[in-house]
């Protein structure tokens, strides 16, 4: 359901906290119906950017619109049409599930409120536990409740700030299924995450590091744009090989994944030479492998923003 209409459109957005630039002149466009992954290490400015988009923080520079409203001047109109799920569970633990949803229903003036709340409970599968205190829910349920609360008023844009931190894989899978269902109904989603598998479930990703966007595009685009090459080594004493490789020319990363040692470098020729020299006589074999998103992210994190901002289409 992706069409051309930009839902988020920001230019040169900047935020400083006591003189320190946390978000540095970033541009970003998110179109209607897209699920865009917002990635980057801790403290890179993801949360700050999301907060500026929904009017919780005032930008120090740049301009932007969200749902066609100016983010600096019309935040009250943006808030009416945006669902925002905070990183921390920010509903009331001393209110029951139903009371929390009632609270949200009243805030958005949903009428008839009981119908909205019942529908949300039903969709959540929590009708039977609606009188349980929210604080007694497990992490996965809390996060589903928070999601239900943030979409109850049928927003046009959903902002999710690391929604699945500390949630088990099954709950995460279900959560993402729900996100795709919502996107299928036309909801636009901007989601920040640390998880590679989640990044891969997004239509597009934006990678931010030290307040600057350093990569963007679809997953294959970002991988291709990184210019990284990967060799997979199997057999031999992988820990020793990995240690030796890290001192060699042209090797950026050497990481063990189970029985495979992933060796990553930018120059395929130097990479191959270094690998061949290191594994000679160890009994290990090497073959060309596929560079994965995680390799690209490790590289981006190590570079700390030095990588070029490329990745296909302008976003």
């Amino acid at each position, binding site marked *: 359901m992706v069409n051309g209409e930009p839902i988020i459109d920001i230019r040169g957005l900047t935020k400083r906290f006591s003189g320190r630039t946390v978000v540095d002149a970033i541009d970003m466009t998110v179109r209607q119906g897209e699920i865009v992954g917002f990635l980057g290490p801790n403290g890179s400015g993801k949360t700050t950017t999301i907060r500026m988009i929904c009017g919780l923080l005032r930008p120090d520079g740049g301009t932007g619109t969200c749902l066609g409203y100016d983010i600096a001047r019309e935040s*009250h109109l943006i808030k*009416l049409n945006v669902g925002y799920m905070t990183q921390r569970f920010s509903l009331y633990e001393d*209110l029951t599930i139903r009371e929390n949803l009632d609270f*949200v229903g009243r805030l958005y*003036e949903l009428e008839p409120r009981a119908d909205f709340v019942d529908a949300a409970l039903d969709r959540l599968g929590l009708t039977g536990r609606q009188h349980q205190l929210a604080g007694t829910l497990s992490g996965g349920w809390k996060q589903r409740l928070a999601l239900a609360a943030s979409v109850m008023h049928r927003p046009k844009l959903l902002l999710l700030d690391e929604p699945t931190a500390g949630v088990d894989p099954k709950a995460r899978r279900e959560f993402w299924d729900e996100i795709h269902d919502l996107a299928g109904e036309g909801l636009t989603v901007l989601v920040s995450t640390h998880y590679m598998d989640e990044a891969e479930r997004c239509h597009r990703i934006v990678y931010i590091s030290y307040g600057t966007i350093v990569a963007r595009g679809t997953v294959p685009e970002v991988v291709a744009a990184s210019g990284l090459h990967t060799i997979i080594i199997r057999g031999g004493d992988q820990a020793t090989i990995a240690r030796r490789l890290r001192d060699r020319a042209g090797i950026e990363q050497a990481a063990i994944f189970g029985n495979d040692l992933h060796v990553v470098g930018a120059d395929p020729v130097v990479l191959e030479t270094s690998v061949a020299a290191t594994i000679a006589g160890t009994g290990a074999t090497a073959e060309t492998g596929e560079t994965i998103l995680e390799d690209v992210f490790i590289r981006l994190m190590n570079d700390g923003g030095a990588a070029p901002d490329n990745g296909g289409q302008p976003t």
Partner: protein
Amino acid sequence: MRYRRFSGSRITAVMAKEVIQMRRDHLTFAMIIGVPILQLILFGYAINTDPRQLPTVVVAADAGPVTRSLMAAMDTSDYFAIADRAVDEPTAERLIARGEAAFIVTIPDHFERDLVRGERPQILVQADATDPAATSGGLNALTTLIERAIARNGTGSGTPDGGGVELVLHRLYNPEGITAHNIVPGLLGTILTMTTILMTGLALTREVERGTIENLMATPARPHEIMLGKIVPYIGFGFLQVAVILIAAALLFAVPLEGPLLALLTVTLIFIAANVTLGYTFSTIARNQMQAMQMTFFFFLPSILLSGFMFPYRGMPGWAQALGEVIPLTHFLRAVRAIMLKGSGMVEVIPHVWPLAVILALISVVALARYRRTLD
């Protein structure tokens, strides 16, 4: 969706939430009920003090040498500050009813003549006994002063006890001088000051500490809606305390309610509103619940010390009285003592109520200005 600047639904959302949270917080709820009863019992004892320079009016129908001598003696003594010498009786009564005078000394017609004839003329002393501690020292001193004034003039038959004069004492408003009658209205104010400021002081800081403020700010709720939603329930809780205190006061200390209940409730409403708004202002300034609590106690201390609750207002030095004027409790105490003990109605207590209303308006402006619309 259409955007409304003022939404009853959004205010109700916050109000309903606050009430539920309070109801579930058993400890705080027990405090709302328990603190008033505990304090009533503890403070049932008097805090005795000896204030000076009490405003006194003299209704002198006779102005002979003994009268002049007596007035001079009263003036020089520390206890009395003679505000007016030439008033008629109705004026004097009005002054004491409004709390502008603490004593009326009435010297009857033919006082000097009767004194010389040895007919033991009466001097009537009426004292505002709503605060017995404040007036008892003055009453004791007066007997001695009259004796000396007569002795100095060498008149009268000079009996050892009365000095030829019969001193008639009228303790107005609280005839038995029961301290509890003064303390209870005072406690009503102090308890409300402490609990309502503290509860609302925690209202916003708790949301900040728990991280729920981020969610609340991301919703369309406006600052004034959040403020009203958080303040109104605590006004309700305040009235719950008023009920507890008034019932306990009637049962334990038999404190009368002379004036109209409606006047008492109206004054109390304005007072509680001022306090919860102040608490809310604290909570917009404080970074966490700890700070909000410290600010509450920082405010509470001068409130009980300078308002006339702990020490009689008239016993304080001028600068302390000036400070006391900006404290809501000061005005509330005057109004409530007047209503409960003097039987004053709404009209009589207007002079004490308008300062409260001004304080409330000022605090509201500050609270709204202080509220952060963003997380910056």
